[in-house]
Each structure stands twice: as structure tokens, then as C-alpha cells.
């Protein structure tokens, strides 16, 4: 391939998935390398969630290749994907609101001390680790025993991202982490997306907000009705070659917004509405 150096962490080639007669995802190819944010944009029903569920091991693709570290894989479960360093942070399932920050952070991976039957959850160590990890991400918590529900939505997503990074995620799949958030809260999350990238993670950032994507993204793949409209790099960024094209075309924010919103459809809609209003 025409790569100059960076080997992709994960890569899918011509991946497809159908549900009954519905072609949810058709022939999509994309890749993520370490230290980059790959934005996956698309309107509702574009196939974003089906695609990430295939990446995270919830669904198995019907056809196409899924390659991790240069080796073809087939995941049977999210745990399987996690073992390969692919962690997914879901928007609504990121955290359990009534549990404390430390307990959430280590749920399923609790550090223990002593031996059975006295083996216990090492709460002190968990607290210390949480405090340190969150400080590294720039979140200062007053009290790690406070329920996650007392955190803002942005902080919750951020803690979930910090957790994934701490437990060795090399590829972070973030499912609409900013979509339910206000501008300020979204800013908090976007900051951690950049931090995760700086720590060497490959990030797949799913969103339907091109403005958020533009702030953090290195490359942009746009989905529409289950198909890819192509992968683009930022227009002012130095050109990064992409697998599926000799050189990825550049894109400006305006073009991105227009593609996302379905520029032509929007123009038609405004025409129609004008007709109604008149």
C-alpha cells in the first residue's frame, strides 16, 4: 500500500452488513493509525452504529476483511475486541450514575489484595489510580467516592475515555460522545479526545456534528445510507495518503457541513418551505 510509514492499527476493507433485506452497511473501507482522530460522520440511519458495532465485536460483518495489526480477525464478542485493545465508549452506557467514580472506573477490573477468602477490592489503590488518571486527563475530582451522577455529562464521557485508555485501549471508538451535550460540555470531551490521541491512541470519533468533528479530526469519513461518500483530510493539513485512494482529497469545514447536512437536500427543503410559506 502507498503508506508512508504509519501502519494502521485497525483497518476494514469492503465491509458489509445486512439485516434481512436492509443493507445497513455496504462496502465500506476505512482505517485508523496510532495518534490520529478519524471522524465518522453521518446522519441518522447512515450506518454509523452498525459499522462501529462490527468494529467493537457486537456484530460480525457479512463480508469484507477486518484487519488488526496486519492480521485478519473475527471477534465473537465485545470482550474479544477489548482483548485486542479496541475499546468502545457508548454514549448512554458509559457509566453507571449511582455508583461512585472509583467503582465505575474499575467495574469488572477491580484491583484486589490479600488471598481468598479474604481477598478484597483494594479501594485505596483504586482511589489513588483514579485520581492520578483523571488528573492526567485534566479532570480534578473533589471526591472519588462521589456518584458518577454528580458529574456533568461531559465529565462522565471523559472519565469513561480515561478508563478505556487506562485499561490499555489502543483504539478508542467513541459513539456520539458529544451529541447530548451543550457547547461547553462538548468542549470538555473534545479536549480529552485530543489528549487520548496525544497519548498514542487511534480514535474513531462518531458524530453527526461536523463542527465537533472539525475541531479534533485528522481525517473524515462520511457515511450516507450505508455507503461511504469518501475519506477526506483537513484542507490545511499536510496531505496524508489514505488506503482507498492514492491521495485523500481535502475538505473544508463548509464542504463538510454541506455534505453532512445533505447540501442538495437542504437546498430542496428550503425551496419547499419557501413555497409553503408563500
Amino acid at each position, binding site marked *: 500500500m502507498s503508506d508512508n510509514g504509519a501502519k494502521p492499527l485497525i483497518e476494514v476493507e469492503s465491509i458489509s452488513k445486512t439485516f434481512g433485506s436492509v443493507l445497513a452497511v455496504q462496502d465500506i473501507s476505512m482505517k485508523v493509525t496510532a495518534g490520529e482522530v478519524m471522524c465518522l460522520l453521518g446522519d441518522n440511519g447512515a450506518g454509523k452504529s452498525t459499522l462501529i458495532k462490527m468494529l467493537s465485536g457486537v456484530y460480525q460483518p457479512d463480508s469484507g476483511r477486518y484487519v488488526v495489526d496486519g492480521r485478519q480477525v473475527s471477534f465473537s464478542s465485545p470482550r474479544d475486541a477489548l482483548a485486542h485493545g479496541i475499546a468502545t465508549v457508548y454514549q448512554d*452506557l458509559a457509566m*453507571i*450514575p449511582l455508583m461512585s467514580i472509583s467503582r465505575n472506573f474499575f467495574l469488572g477490573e477491580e484491583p484486589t489484595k490479600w488471598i481468598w477468602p479474604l481477598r478484597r*477490592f483494594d479501594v485505596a489503590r483504586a482511589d489513588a489510580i483514579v485520581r492520578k488518571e483523571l488528573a492526567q486527563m*485534566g479532570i*480534578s475530582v473533589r471526591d472519588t467516592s462521589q456518584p458518577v451522577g*454528580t458529574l456533568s455529562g461531559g465529565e462522565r464521557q471523559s472519565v469513561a475515555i480515561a478508563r478505556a485508555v487506562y485499561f490499555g485501549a489502543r483504539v478508542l471508538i467513541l459513539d456520539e460522545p458529544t451529541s447530548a451535550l451543550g457547547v461547553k460540555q462538548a468542549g470538555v470531551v473534545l479536549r480529552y479526545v485530543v489528549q487520548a490521541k496525544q497519548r498514542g491512541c487511534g480514535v474513531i470519533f462518531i458524530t453527526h456534528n461536523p463542527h465537533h468533528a472539525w475541531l479534533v479530526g485528522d481525517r473524515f469519513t462520511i457515511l450516507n445510507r450505508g455507503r461511504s461518500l469518501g475519506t477526506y483530510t483537513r484542507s490545511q493539513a499536510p496531505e496524508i495518503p489514505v488506503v482507498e485512494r492514492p491521495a485523500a482529497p481535502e475538505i473544508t469545514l463548509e464542504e463538510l457541513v454541506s455534505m453532512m447536512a445533505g447540501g442538495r437536500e437542504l437546498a430542496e427543503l428550503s425551496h419547499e418551505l419557501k413555497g409553503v410559506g408563500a
Partner: protein
Amino acid sequence: MSNQVTAPQAPPGLLADERLRRTSLLSRLLSRPELGAVAGTIAVWIFFAIVAGSGFLTASGTNAYLQVAAEIGILAVPVSLLMIGGEFDLSIGTMIGAAGMIIALLAGTYGYPFWFGIGIAAIFALVVGFLNGLIVVWTRLPSFIVTLGTQFILAGVTIGMTRHLTGLTTIGQLDVAQGFAAAHAIFATKLGGVYAISIVWWLAIVALATWVLLRTRFGNWTYGAGGNAEAARNLGVPVARVKILLFMCTALAAWLVATIEASSFKNSDVLRGTGREFEAIIATVIGGTLLTGGYGSVIGPALGALIFGMVSQGIVIAGVDSDWYKAFLGGMLILAVLLNNYIRRRVGERR
């Protein structure tokens, strides 16, 4: 802790610690599930100390309410764990009757050693708890319905079997069974001639359950399973195993109460334990455990059981017609739920 912020671009909004710190003591208090139960326990004790007077404060008065509290508390503790884990068990009341009848049939009617009866009853309880859990986990039906079914099955089978085998509904004279004296010493003796040993069992179970809930992985998984089973499963928590084990714990608690009562009364009755599941749930809810799961404690329900005991005995000692007892409890239950809802809203909405 706030001086650990080393990240280059810490968001300015998060550094406003002095603004947030002002609410932190109040919020920490409010986020304790036991808060309502602690306040309630103190209030109810003072109330009866004044109204019921010295009779309530004597050793025998104290034992009277502690003993009631212990038998409800032994049930309420695992019921609370199960509720934190997101499930209900309505079958424990009739489980008491069933386990008691197994002990009585084996040790009384058929002349086996008392301990053999206790052992078989324990195995039976664990199997029923396991099946309850398995059905709930497999079918994903609400545990309310599944254990309501088990409750009726146990009640019917207990009465049907006992009458079929003996023609009776109460089997007595268990003290002639071999090993009864030892069982009586462990389950039914009075410490210092006054305090029932069931109080010690209760306190031991509270201590053990608190440790499990707060200091073990299983405890963390319990919170996770009840808080959001889907999210917990995604993180690798064996939610099904946790829930099945919790159902086995509630059934085993019912067995312990059955054993204590069979040893104390030297008899078993098919109807013994009927309605206890609701008493345990009331104590649990008064103790601040959420019906919807994911939030609660062990200390709270233990105090809820204590309130239960104080009200039931305090009313009698005060000379009030005990007909009013249930009305009082029902009122407490509703108050407790209102308080819990308020706390949960505080926890959920403060951003």
C-alpha cells in the same frame, strides 16, 4: 488533590473547586443511603422511650424489639443485596415455612437427627434460590413475577406434602430429635438469660454482608448488575452469576430464620413465615435501598429492621392497640420512599 492538575489545558470550569466544595459535605451526607434510616432509628427510639416509658428501656424490652429486628434483619440484609443487584425475591416468606417443614418432617416425623434435617433444608433452599435466579436470568422475566410464582408453589407444596404425609399442618416435639440440644444452643439460646442469640446472627450477617458489598469485587459487581446490567456486562461483569448467587443468599437467609424458629419453638408450622418477604422489603426500603437497584447499603436495611422491631414491640409496651401497627409501618414505608426519591434526584441532577 486539586493541586494535582498537571494537564496543560485543564478546563477552567473544572478548577472552580471553591464553588463546588461548599456543597460537598451536604452532598456527601445526602448521598449516604443510610441517612434516612439513622434519623428514623433515633427518632423512633426517642419516641418510644418517652411514650412507652421504662418498659421499653428494660433489658427484656430491649430484647423484645431486638429479637424481632434480628429475624427481619437476617432476611432484610440479603434482600437488600439482591435489590441492589436489581432483583426481587418474594418467595423467602414461604421458603421459611418450607424449610421449617423439611426440618420438622425429617427430625420430628421420621426420626432423623436434627442436624440432618437442617442440612437437607439448607440444600433445598440453595436449590430453590438457584432456580429462582436461573429462571430470572434465562427468561429475563421480572423477578417479581418469577418469585411470586415460586412463592405460591412453595406454599402449596409445603401444605400439600405435609398434610399428605402426616395429616397435620403443625409438627411439634422436635426437641426429642438427636442433636437438638446442640442446635438449640447455636440457634436459639438466650445470652445472659435475656438476649436471643439470633441477635448475634443478625449482627454477624450485617458485618459480613457490609464487607462483601463494600470491599469485594462481588460487591462492586452487585452494584453494577443493578445499576445497569447492560453496561456491566459490556465491562465483563458476570451479571448472571452475580444474580443467581444473590438469589441463593436470600433463600439461605430464609433457611436460617426457619432453623432459628424451629429450634426456638420446638415445632414447625406450614404457614410460618407467610408475609415475611414484605417485612424484609419494607425494612430494606426504609433503609434506603432503591427498588430499581444499583443503590443501597446493608447498614440501612439493618436499621430498617431495627425500626420495624421497635415499632412492633414499642406499640405493645406502650399499651396501644397493636391493630395500629401496620398503619404505622405503611406510613413509614411511604415516607422512606419519598425521602429516597428525593435523594436520588439530588444525586442524579446535581451537575
